């Protein structure tokens, strides 16, 4: 993993050196965050039902209303918060557990490494969806339980990156020197290892974020994603799809929101990967 110890690109002129994909991805994420804030500020209650049902966009309801007469703008904005929640849970669990286990395996090696690698490899191949189905039955269906399952399923990918990073850094002379000087393991990890594997982890986190939003939509289709009354793009899309032939707006907005957000996080991940790849830099 030669890229792990490559220096981060210079900070000066950062914006100009960023690839277009990162800029676009970043813009989408800023939009999602803005949407979330707008959702908080918006006086319209996303769960309140009204007499205008399946209404097209109007001054009162800029994006129209759904079957129960709820304001679609308020729901799409509220969905942004939920999307962020979903991603944070899944990526948070995957990243924290993955980095912890991966670094333990890489840093200490030996039987611990073998055991953890075996467990993580098994988990990597184990169908994430089956895990989500089991979690939904044990802890009630909902965004938290299903995203915990998706997060756990994402642990091996993060762990691999972390382990490879640790192995690469461990062999560096300055780390050996630090160790010889009696610097503690925790300190070495925090000072030398973590900063070096940050790049690939951010890339992976960005892709996992996109995947978790899609996973939530898929689980919503099975009735195991975000539960009412919380507005989730996945659930909105799933519910509105059954009456899309009566009105297209309730399915259009959440669909676009999902597509744009997933696209944004994917672009960001791709762009960051290209940007952080030293070989690509040289070319």
């Amino acid at each position, binding site marked *: 993993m030669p890229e792990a110890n490559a220096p981060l690109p210079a900070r000066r002129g950062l914006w100009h050196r960023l690839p277009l994909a990162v800029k676009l991805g970043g813009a989408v994420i800023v939009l999602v965050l803005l949407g979330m804030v707008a959702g908080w500020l918006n006086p319209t209650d996303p769960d309140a039902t009204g007499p205008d049902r399946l209404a097209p966009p109007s001054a009162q309801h800029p994006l129209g209303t759904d079957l129960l007469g709820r304001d679609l703008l308020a729901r799409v904005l509220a969905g942004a918060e939920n999307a962020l929640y979903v991603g944070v849970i899944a990526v948070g669990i995957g990243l924290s557990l993955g980095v912890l286990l991966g670094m333990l395996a890489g840093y200490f090696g030996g039987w611990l490494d073998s055991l953890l690698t*075996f467990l993580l490899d*098994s988990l*990597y*191949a*184990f*169908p*994430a*969806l*089956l895990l989500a*189905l*089991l979690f939904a*039955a*044990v802890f009630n269906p909902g965004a938290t339980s299903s995203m915990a399952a998706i997060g756990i399923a994402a642990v091996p990918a993060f762990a691999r990156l972390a382990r490879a990073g640790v192995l690469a850094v461990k062999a560096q002379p300055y780390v050996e020197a630090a160790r010889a000087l009696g610097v503690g393991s925790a300190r070495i990890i925090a000072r030398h290892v973590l900063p070096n594997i940050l790049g690939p982890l951010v890339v992976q986190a960005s892709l996992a974020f*996109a995947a978790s939003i*899609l996973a939530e*939509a*898929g689980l919503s*289709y*099975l009735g195991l994603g975000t539960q009412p009354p919380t507005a989730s793009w*996945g659930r909105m*899309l*799933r519910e509105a*799809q059954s009456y899309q032939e009566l009105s297209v707006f309730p399915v259009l907005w959440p*669909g676009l929101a*999902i*597509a*744009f957000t*997933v*696209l944004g996080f*994917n*672009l960001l991940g*791709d762009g960051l990967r290209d940007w952080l790849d030293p*070989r*690509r830099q040289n*070319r």
Partner: protein
Amino acid sequence: MWSYLARRFAVALATLWLASSLVFLALLVIPGDPASIILGFGADPERIAALQARLGLDKPPLERYLLWYAGALQGDLGESIRYSSPVRTEIARGLSVTLPVVVFSLLLATLISVPLGVLAARRAGSWLDVGISTAALLGIVLPSFWVGLMFIYLFIVRLDLPLPTSFPIDGWRDPQRALLALVLPILTVTLSRSALLVRMVRGSVLEVLSQDYVRTARAKGLAERKVLYKHALKNAALPVVTVLGLEFSQLLIAAVIVETVFGLPGLGSLSLTAINARDFPLVQGIVVVLAAFIVLVNLIVDLLYAYLDPRVSYA
């Protein structure tokens, strides 16, 4: 080679044991029990107890666990509570639908995405590359249930193609309709998987093309076509094979979404039903069969690795 196989086998057994034990534990803590679910609105504590006794569910968990193992070691996965039928039969039925969908989709996806990915990598930065990459991204951002329902709307409601949208009641005894019923599900899975694979292939070909030995080969004056096929493609195939292996085991269950859209009685739907019905012999059986598949696929991937990469040897 044999010691390698023996080691793999031991690891496989450990995986099977671990997976089935963890799932058994999970099933113990899930609220609800098969008897009360079967009885539904007729459930009252007395009747539930009577049915539990009839189903053998009144035994202590440890005894049930050991009994299940005793059976499983003899190849008997027990009887499904939900379906009053041998677990083996039900899993075979699920696989008879899901395997064709998964295998054909992955095959099709590979056939589509490898040429496209290579093309995009060779012309990296060109409009062709941008076009292929953008299309691939679009394939990724659409939830598969939405794509499936759009396919139905497009092909059946609008174009009125004579395709069924659900599996025939006679199953594979009506092979023509059964095959036709798999067309749209396969297309749906293919779309999302090839989108993923195109990006994968493009990335790994690009990476290989920037390696020193490829540059050397080019410098030696080897024809571009030869460089591509001799060096680049073979090496780029490694990560693709890994991903295909992983996708295969994931899709066996993840197909549940497409199965629901298209009314297919596959393995994914079976797992959903089994978990909802707290049918522990069936859930256990599915997990064991899945684990066996994962081990098998990993083995195949390893062997392919040995074939594709001369540096890898299991001797």
